């Protein structure tokens, strides 16, 4: 509730932010503050220096061109969920953003802050993994690099982002005419975080699935691609039976560590991964499951 003392700097540009990170050993970036401030208040994080990048305008906004959605790291969940352009270009992003936290969290919280926090229970890592997004990163001396989610998320609260790097934007492909995407989650009744989240992106021609990218999160340290489910789905008609059959392969892809707690055990979460994948596919393809 009462954060410890820290020094505060406000950066005007990304370069300045990187400069501040370089010159202060345990400096931390803050934008919307919805990942860092709760830790600060509980005194679980104690950076001596906070670098506020919240007002760097070059990091804000949504642009859609040439089949790519580019979202500045400081774009808030609310801006994403309320973007009509985005709803048309990549509806799953708007929809997922609209289900994060609550109104105030969405008003302040940013997609970049969420992604670099790498909380296993948050929604963006799962959705962006299924979408095959790319993370644009800027480092010291103006260097830039682009990383895919699979190479970015290492473990709970751990990424490959360097201490002197800033995530500047996230890119995702727009969804084509034949593509359907959906994110389904079981939310924790207290925190609202994902106990299990499943994101599906499928290409449908006629009624046959010709391609699929499916990821789950919440129950795993980092989002996991459901390749067995994808394989089982491709080439099949998207009906109730085939969806259920494909989803039943989920456990094949969940051989690594599964998270569990008193509210939801690993066993339960694993079973729910299959259920949420099914729900996401049903909703994406508008197949009724009753």
């Amino acid at each position, binding site marked *: *509730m*009462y*954060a*410890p*003392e820290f020094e505060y700097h406000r950066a005007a540009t990304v370069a300045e932010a990187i400069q501040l990170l370089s010159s202060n050993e345990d400096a931390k970036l803050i934008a919307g503050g919805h990942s860092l401030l709760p830790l600060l208040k*509980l*005194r679980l994080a104690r950076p001596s220096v906070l670098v506020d990048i919240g007002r760097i305008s070059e990091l804000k906004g949504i642009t859609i061109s040439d089949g790519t959605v580019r979202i500045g790291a400081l774009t808030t969940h609310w801006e994403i969920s309320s973007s009509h352009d985005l709803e048309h270009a990549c509806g799953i992003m708007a929809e997922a953003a609209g289900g994060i936290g609550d109104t105030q969290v969405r008003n302040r919280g940013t997609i970049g802050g969420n992604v670099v926090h790498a909380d296993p229970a948050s929604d963006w890592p799962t959705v962006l993994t299924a979408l095959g997004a790319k993370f644009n990163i800027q480092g010291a001396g103006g260097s830039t690099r682009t990383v895919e989610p699979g190479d970015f998320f290492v473990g709970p609260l751990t990424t490959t982002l360097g201490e002197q790097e800033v995530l500047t934007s996230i890119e995702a492909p727009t969804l084509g005419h034949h593509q359907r995407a959906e994110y389904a989650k*079981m939310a*924790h*009744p*207290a*925190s609202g975080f994902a106990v299990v989240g499943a994101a599906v992106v499928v290409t449908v021609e006629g009624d046959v699935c010709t391609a699929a990218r499916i990821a789950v999160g919440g129950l795993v340290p980092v989002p996991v691609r459901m390749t067995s489910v994808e394989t089982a789905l491709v080439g099949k008609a998207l009906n109730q039976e085939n969806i259920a059959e494909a989803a039943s392969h989920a456990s094949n892809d969940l051989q690594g560590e599964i998270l569990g707690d*008193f*509210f*939801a*055990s690993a066993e*339960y979460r694993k*079973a*729910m991964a299959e*259920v949420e994948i099914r729900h996401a596919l049903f909703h994406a393809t508008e197949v009724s499951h*009753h």
Partner: protein
Amino acid sequence: MTKLGGTPTMTTRIFGSGIRRREDPRLMTGQADYTDDIRLRGMVHAAILRSPHAHAKINSIDTSAARNAPGVLAVYTGADTDGVLNPIPCAWLPPDSDIKAVDHPAMAVDTVRYVGDAVAVVVAESRYQAEDALELINVDYSALPSVVNPQAAMASGAPQLHEDAPNNQAFHWVVAGGDADAAFAAAAGDPQNHVVVSENIVQQRLIPNAMEPRSAVASWQSAMGELTLWSTSQNPHIVRFLCSLVTGIGEHKIRVIAVDVGGGFGSKVAMYADEMLATFCTMQLGRPVKWTATRSEGYMSTIHGRDHVQQVEMAATKDGKITGLRATVYAGMGAYLSTAGPGVPTILHGLMYSGPYEIPNVKGDIFGVFTNTTPVDAYRGAGRPEATFLLERMIELLAAELDIDPVEMRRRNLIQPFEDGHDVSTGLTYDSGNYQGTLDLALQHVDYPALRKEQTELRSQGQYMGIAVSTYCEICGLGPSQVAGAVGFGGGLWESAIVRFYATGKVNVFVGTSPHGQGEETTFAQIVSDELGVPVEDIEIIHGDTDITPMGWGTYGSRTTVVGGAAVVLSARKIKEKGKALAAHLLEAAEEDIEYEDGKFFVRGSPDQNKTIQDIALMANVAWNMPEGMEPGLEATTFYDPPNFSYPFGAHVAVVSVDADNGHIVLQRYVAVDDCGPQINPVIVEGQVHGGVVQGAGQALWEGVVYDDNGQLLTGSMLDYALPKAHLLPNIEVLSTVTPSPHNPLGVKGIGETGSIASTVTIYNAVIDALKPLGITKLEMPLSSQRVWQAIQQAKGA
């Protein structure tokens, strides 16, 4: 656009009218003063270091670094308060129960007994500085084994909390009526005609979660030897009383203020160590000291509720007449006995084992048990939800066993309607009841046969819909004081009210009880307005300041309107009597010829010859022309001690659906039919029912304290402890019947707790009903998706 303070014109009788609340304008505009909003000149801030161990010896405490930290004025430990502050008292010691009122020091001296036990307090210029300094205190602990489950704590070999309480037994209290053992022996001896069902029930521990965290501002004026204590309390006069016992300050030198309090639900009944630490600090430092709990701190240090392990059996004849009930209950008390803690699973629980039914033979063995956990005390319903759960669950099991419809099962055992007194086997005399009336209305409202038909249809489609109906009654309106004394309550249970008219005809009503969200600033004004014809906007209710208000025992047990409201109306009636005498004098008529109606005193047969209540108030206050021997002033005081408790009752219906895929429960419908007697303000009554039902739903579906085996609180914040949220709830359908209490001047029975009494078990039974096709008969609460899903998996596998 309405102006602040405006009130709709009275067109109908004000008693019974759903007028807008008079306290709302200040609450809606940020102008209310809750305790944490208080700012005093020179005020400093306290922060409390709490034990991270459930049970440990304190070897040493090093506070030197903290003392030297920026802004710090002082650091105190148990060594400083020991012998200066008396132990925090438990004020409810049920007789004949071998109760062990172990010492509860304000700060731990050599042993900590739960995570959250206070170990040191830092006072600094700002709360931030106090928190920084807390981290510099070094406590050397030797951890001791701990126990959190009340039944396990009584087993041999369990870690012991207090030397004076062998086997951690705080008390053993017995309720008995008829001959339960004989009834069960008879049932066992005649299995052809009898049936016995038994069940182990866990009433999980809950966190009350008033939205306002506890807070205290203590200000000591050394020159006068006077203490002012702003406190988040449901009963400021009791706080003054107990504060005097703990600090040794004369009761007449203590002023406790609790005007705007952000909810309590029982959690602000207790006297807490923390408020006394703030008091200690201000007395040491001579500066006002504020302490406010953070939410997570409150989760450790504010009382919890429920925490029963119950072993229950019920016997009945094969035609569904209940012949006996036996229960053994292990009630967790936490590490120390909280103020009213022992009264909750005994008087407020065991005495209600007959519920609304004729149960001729009842026996309950109630064990209060010390565990290495936060102390347990009254939480909305306090003992009665646990009793209602037990009864309604057992009746449901009987109905299933005998294949009788659960509604019919209840009908066969309900007490027949009565208007003035009915004795039950536990020794209580209920005031009035028409249990069939509420049940009939509830069934008619939901169209019970149609619901069952819908259920059958859905079941044939493989879907899980559940229906449950409960009937309940509860004990409310706590007094009488004589009974309070007899059952070991360390105080009275009467209430008081002063009705004071000023020369201008405006009225202040000073009441001893202290509402904190229940709306009595409105309903008490309605009572006075109804009685004396004064517009409601001319009446102001004053409460929550012990220097201004007469003595009263506070708001809990749905007693403020019942007992306090009675004091108000009786004072108003005294005013009326004096008004009559004065009017007779002024109108030069005989007093027996004076009639009163709608705020006017007039000579019978000549309504034009009259004096308004305002005329009377003016004359009484200026006293220019008073009858011989009549005192000036228009003011009346009543100390009202009720002759009996009140017994609200009702019938509730829940409809749920369960998704077998993931175990999700959706509460589809909830219908509450309650009878609290005449309703002073039906809108407020409805609001109380909504809130109560949802809190009870919280226990059934989402809420529950989790400690690990080492006594660490895993549900330590709102991130983990799930409170009911708006999107998870349906609109509650609220109906009522009106059966006046024969002994209360207003006929009222109380409505603050009814919702929470019946809703937990009604929703629970509905979920079990939904899962009936799978043969599931029992689940652990809260009914989380995982638990439901696991039960379904198990049932399908079997």
